[in-house]
Structures are given as structure tokens and as C-alpha cells.
């Protein structure tokens, strides 16, 4: 997992970068287009250039006072072009589908990967929205079956496998303890309830952390309601101390 600096450091770095071209950074990006996941962190490259920058220019320009209320203009730095998301397949605010061809059909998997990379990049380096280069990409161009084939089916296979294993073992176990066969088990209300619970368990608890997540979710769901009903809770204690 990457180590991401907290926002404070990051914005400081980006504001330093905004005034100065970062040649190391750009070449890193173009070289790494072919290797999907091992892009050099811009933080590392910027730290290198930071050393260079501080040697060349003694101090960052004064308009980087971030929280200053008395600043006349919100910011007068030049547009931070260097930090913008750049990719040869990202053309005019959307992904160029002709560059995602794979034997004549569009390679949706690499498009999904590219979009994930773009969002990750923008999450770490938020970019100004611009009227000249608006983002017009619409995720609905990716067909539903591309998502299904890549993400839903493997997980469905895993969950169905778990359900089948649990079902087989529990049916055998109940049969060996009570002598009730599978068909008779399905006619029994208690067994049907247990079956429902087992299916719900398999669907809801997919990872170990899901148990905690579900508990927290339940608390959160009812919390707001409790805050609204608070004024009615005190009704009994209040009528005793009428003033």
C-alpha cells in the first residue's frame, strides 16, 4: 500500500510545484504508461525537486499564505499545469475509446483500470474544475456485462460455493442427528428459518470485518431517530417538574 502524506504536507508540496516545472516528474509519468501499477510516487519525485527548488530560489512566493484573511486575491499563482492528470488515452475530457481496442473490440477492463487510476490521481492531486477543459466522461458507456463478468461473477462463485458447502454439511449433520432427510427438512419451519439465516449470513458477512460493519451500521441507522425522539422521552420526567 502506498504511503500517503496527510493533506497538509501535500498541499504545501503542490503549491511549491505550481510555480516550477518538474521535468523529473513528467518523464516518470510517460515512462510508466505501460506498467500499470508501479508509477513513481509524485511525492518522491517532488521531494527531489524540492531540494533543487530551494537551492535555486530562496523562498516560495508570498502569495502562498493559505489561511490569510487579508489576502487581496484568493491566489495569484500560475495554473498548476504540472499536477494535472495527463494520459495519452485521456483526450478532451474523456477516454478515447479507439485507443482501448483489443482485437477489434473495446477492452473494457483496461478502461475500468484507467478510470480507477485517474480517480486515484485526482484524489491525491485535486484539480481545479475548468470551463475550458471540462470532464465529459460518462461511466455509463461501460456496458453492464463488462462489470458483471469481471467483478460480480467471481464473487458470486465464491459465495455460492460457501452456501453449497454450508448447506451440504448442515443437511448431513441434521440428518445424522435427527434422522430427518433432506426433503422432510425442507418441509419443517425451523429448518426453513435456519436456511434463510444461513443464506443471509453468507450474503452479508463476506469478510471478517463485516460483522463489526453491520453492527455499526445498525447503530448509525437508529441513532438519528433517537435524537429526534429525545424530546418525547423526557415527557414523563418533565410533567413531574412543571414550572
Amino acid at each position, binding site marked *: *500500500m*502506498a504511503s500517503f502524506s496527510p*493533506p*497538509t504536507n501535500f*498541499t504545501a508540496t503542490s503549491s511549491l510545484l505550481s510555480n516550477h516545472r518538474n521535468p523529473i516528474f513528467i518523464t516518470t509519468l510517460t515512462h510508466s504508461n505501460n506498467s500499470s*501499477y*508501479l*508509477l513513481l*510516487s*509524485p511525492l518522491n519525485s517532488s521531494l527531489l525537486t524540492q531540494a533543487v527548488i530551494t537551492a535555486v530560489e530562496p523562498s516560495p512566493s508570498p502569495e502562498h499564505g*493559505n*489561511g490569510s*484573511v487579508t*489576502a*487581496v*486575491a*484568493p*491566489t*495569484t499563482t500560475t*495554473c*498548476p499545469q504540472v499536477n494535472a492528470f495527463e494520459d495519452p488515452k485521456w483526450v478532451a475530457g474523456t477516454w478515447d475509446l479507439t485507443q482501448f481496442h483489443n482485437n477489434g473490440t473495446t477492452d473494457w477492463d483496461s478502461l*475500468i*483500470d484507467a*478510470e*480507477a*487510476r*485517474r*480517480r*486515484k490521481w*485526482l*484524489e*491525491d492531486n*485535486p484539480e*481545479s*474544475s*475548468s*470551463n*475550458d477543459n*471540462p*470532464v465529459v*466522461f*460518462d*461511466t455509463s458507456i*461501460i456496458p*453492464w456485462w463488462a*462489470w458483471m463478468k469481471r*467483478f460480480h461473477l467471481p464473487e458470486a462463485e465464491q459465495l455460492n460455493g460457501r452456501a453449497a458447502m454450508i448447506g451440504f454439511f448442515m443437511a448431513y449433520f441434521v440428518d445424522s442427528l435427527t434422522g430427518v432427510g433432506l426433503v422432510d427438512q425442507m418441509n419443517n419451519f425451523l429448518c426453513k428459518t435456519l436456511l434463510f439465516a444461513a443464506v443471509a449470513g453468507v450474503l452479508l458477512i463476506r469478510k471478517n470485518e463485516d460483522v463489526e460493519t453491520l453492527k455499526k451500521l445498525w447503530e*448509525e441507522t437508529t441513532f*438519528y431517530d433517537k*435524537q*429526534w425522539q*429525545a*424530546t*418525547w422521552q*423526557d*415527557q414523563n420526567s*418533565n*410533567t413531574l417538574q*412543571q*414550572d
Partner: protein
Amino acid sequence: MRIFSPSNIAVDFGKTLKSNEFIAMLRREVLDSFLRSRAASAGATVIPALVTAIDLPPSPTAPYTIHYTLQNTYRRSLAVDVVIGADGANSRVAKSIGAGDYTCAIAFQERIKLPDEKMAYYENLAEMYVGNDVSPDFYGWVFPKCDHVAVGTGTVRSKQDIKLYQKGIRDRVHHKIKGGKLIKVEAHPIPEHPRPLRVRGRVALVGDAAGYVTKCSGEGIYFAAKSGRVCGNAVVKASEGGYKMIDECDLRREYLKIWDKEYVNTFRFLDLLQRVFYGSNAAREALVELCGDEYVQRMTFESYLYKKLAKGRVFDDAKMVMNTIGSLVKCNILGRKMEGLIL
């Protein structure tokens, strides 16, 4: 209105607005003075003063005593039968009746005067930005205010980082506000939920003092005005035009019960929306994707403009639910891929 996702995907929200419908941008200074003068012309006595304390009555029929300061020097008192506290998030009335505390969000806003050609872009357009850089649990905005724009953001859980988020929203609109001049900085607490006690004795709280602010959109103006009206009507009805003494049960029955029945579902629904869609960048991307759908826009505006959860056709509702689930799943898949990336 245009909504921008964390990756700057933008949707135009408002395609379904009819010509007589619009998203109102409010100038409080104008609205407040209008309301005051309207009250005065309806027969109210307006006393410009600062309320300093309220004494609770020693017996059920004794009056409340309001201590106030005129023109920063003269201290006076006023004996009244009923007090309606409409004094906002830091309500003194609420403190004096021990109404309890609530968690607040902080909303921070800077008013910036733009050069004319940049202001022309905002003549009929408000913008909303979502993203972790702008706020971890709320949104950032650029709202036009007649001749300048208000650029701001808010948060509940990271109030000490509000300046950072303000820089974040300014960076997101960097190109559009370049060359603008900062004319004012404002910040204000926004209640997140109602106070534990909204009525006590013959004192009722309305508006922000009671905590009637929806989650998700942070809207409080309408509910403040409406709760004031409902409460006023309750007092008039219970006291039969001012001739009978009212008590706490009257206020609860005529004001709280009616108010809760009418609006608690709206509040609950918006709380659900906030929890689902403002939780992470992936969820925010899903929100922006969904807002592009025309049915969603129509339902949203009908509910927002007429303050009733709009009833649509069941088939379209079902389609919307499926689209919601689909968008959330797709964006969470992308979110999980993003977590595994080292960029």
C-alpha cells in the same frame, strides 16, 4: 446547478426545472429585514436589543422574565407568558431552559467579488463540489449572490481543518475565481440534529435553536420559517386568541406533534442519503452519476421545492433503486481498485 464529483465529472442538476421553478440563493440580510418589517406591520412590537438572560417562573402561572440590553447600555426586563426561542444555533433561550446540546457542523464561507466576465458564468448557475479535499462529510459550494459569489465549505467531524477544506474548494474553482477580490469571511455553526428538549414549560424553540436542519443539504431556512409559523399558530390556538394561559402539553400537542408528523420523515430520508452518499469518494462519485438521471432530478426538485417527499410512479421508483444500487456497486468497485493502486 452543477455538481462536480471528486474527479471533476460534472452533471447539470436542474434540467427538469419548469420556468417558474428555481433554486433560490438567499441573501440573509435582505430576508431578515423583510421578516422583521412584516412582523411589525402585522402588529408586533420590535425591540432591537440583546437578550442576556431569561428567568424561569417560580410557579406555573407566574410570568417569565426576559432581561435585555438596549443600545449596549440600558438594561431592562420584560415579563411575558410565552417565549418562543428563535435565536439560532447558539440560542440563549435554549441554554436558559436547559434544552441540552447538539453536535454542530461548521459552515465556512468567503464572499468573493469576481471580474465581470467571470461573474457572467455564475449569473444563473450555482455549483456544488464533493470530495475528500473539499469536505469529509459535507460539500463545498459556489453560490452566486447577485454581484459576488460565496465560496465555502463545511464539516462536522474535522472542524479544526476547516481552513484546509476552504483552500481545497478554492483550488477546485481556481480558474473560475482567479482575479477575484475577497470581501468577507463568514463562519457559522449548523446544528446536526434536534436538541434533546425542544419545549419546556411555556418556552418553545424553533428553527436553528431547535436544530431543524436537514442533513445532506444543510437546509434550515425553510424549516426555521415554517416551524416559527407552526409554533405561533399553536400558541394562538391553545390560548384561544390570547385569553387563556397555555401550558407545556398544549405546546407539545399543537406544535411538536404536528411538526414531527409532517417533517420527521423528510429529515430521516435526508439523513439516510447523507450516510450513504457522503461517506467516501466512491460514494460521492455514485451520487454524481445518479444525479445525472432525469427521474432523480425531477423527484429531488419536487421534494425540495414543495417540501414533501414526492410520490413518483412505482416502476420508475424501482428503476431508480436499481440504478442506485448499480451505481454504488460500480463506484465502490472502482474505489477498491483505487485503494490497491500506488500512484
